[in-house]
């Protein structure tokens, strides 16, 4: 059995009032300190390259989507959030997604799709907000997922750097 020996209190502590005053002075001093909380919608959360937000599809500089609908992200997705239907295109890559849906209600933002993609077509953007009034509205289609490459560049560079480090250790 553990017996916790109580600390013998001094007279000032036993009188209690001085301690109360000490506490009051502490809170009063803190009263004038700068708030550390964030005014969320006006001051959004800081994001940087490590931020793993929602997956987005890269639109290359020529205006075409980088995705060739190979289905690797669909396979990698542990939450079965991605559904892709491919189709033929006249572009050199022959194949592009006709339907690319991510059910954001299922998506767990794990980033496996980003890792699986052989075409650098899907990256975790720094977008964090996710809200809608309907469930159907949260199944993002191709148009909702498209982002210009420049918007994702920071993350793309980060992923490349990460992968290069991994490669050099091999």
């Amino acid at each position, binding site marked *: 059995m553990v017996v916790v020996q109580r600390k013998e209190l001094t007279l000032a502590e036993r009188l209690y*009032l001085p301690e*109360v005053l000490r*506490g*009051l002075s*502490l*809170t*009063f001093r*803190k*009263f*004038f*300190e*700068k*708030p*550390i*909380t964030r*005014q969320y919608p006006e001051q959004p959360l800081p994001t940087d390259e490590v931020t793993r937000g929602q997956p987005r599809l890269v639109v290359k500089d020529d205006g075409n989507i980088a995705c060739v609908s190979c289905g690797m992200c669909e396979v990698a997705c542990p939450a079965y959030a991605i559904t892709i239907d491919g189709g033929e295109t006249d572009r050199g890559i022959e194949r592009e997604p006709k339907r690319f849906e991510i059910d954001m209600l299922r998506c767990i933002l794990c980033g496996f799709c980003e890792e699986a993609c052989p075409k650098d077509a899907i990256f975790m953007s720094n977008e964090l907000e996710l809200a809608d009034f309907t469930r159907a509205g949260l199944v993002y289609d191709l148009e909702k997922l498209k982002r210009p490459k420049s918007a994702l560049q920071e993350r793309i560079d980060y992923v490349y750097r990460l992968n290069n480090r991994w490669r050099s250790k091999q």
Partner: protein
Amino acid sequence: MEAFLADVPEWILWVAKVALIFGGLIGTAALMSLAERKVSAWMQFRHGPNRVGPFGLLQPLADGIKFIFKEELIPEGANKFLFRLAPALAAIPSMMTIAVIPIGTIVVGEKKIPFSIAQLDLGIMYMLALGGLSVYGAILGGWASNSKYSLLGGLRASAQMISYELTLILSILVIVALSGSLDLGAIVTAQRENGLWNVFTPFGAVAFVLFTIASFAETNRHPFDFAECEPELVGGFHTEYSAMRFALFFLGEYCAMTVMACLNATLFFGGPSVPLWPEAPWFLGILAFLLKAGFFLFLFIWVRWTLPRFRFDQLMRLGWKVALPIALANVLVVGAWVAFTAKGS
């Protein structure tokens, strides 16, 4: 203007004063609900409500609208009559006590209009009588809700009120003995004539500390808010209340706080007298009163966000074994002192 005011019938002045004071009281209570959240936020490095209006100043209004439009629920098995009566019992007595507080004197030309609704000889008795009734709101509300949390909240409220009311009365009695009157106006006048606020006299200082502690307990405020006590009782006596009835409980609590702050300022800090300047103009007096009362209102919030809640047996021990003996001894010594210095008639 002055001539006009001089000719105004007495009853119109009275109605104007009632409107002003009650409006001020309810406005203060509303502002306090905002101040409570703002001050707590600042003490915790937060912003507090700042969405409704500039600096969140319209937040009480938004809250009020919300309270009005929310659904009122009466629990099954509740005593409907008492359940509906309790919020009114909680709010009305504490609002009525403001009537005897002397806020100052308005001077218009030659005419001096005392700025308080009533100047009773037994002002303090009146306050204490009504103040003692405010506990009924908590007790009956807690009992009528047919909920174990509410019942326990009501029980605690009654036990606590009885315990601390003694201390409260005894500490006021010291001031009454020192001033020789139950009239609050007379008490203020006595302090002004002595040139010394009661808090700076040795007995007054002890009484002040006891009064402040007891007033926290009487208004159910931290660190003695056992009647509500969220961690154990979910919300205590008002657990089952919603919408405007809940708002009335809050209004009652904040009005009681306001009155206690005013009383503290009046009894121990000379009410509307300006320090070191007895001939100060009348509006400075009112301002001084408001500042003093404001400080005690701030103290209520300040203490709430500083001290942890007592345990109930600690509360009772503090009340009966510490505060009450000291208060009794204080009364005894003051009585002897007053008797032997033979200042009275």
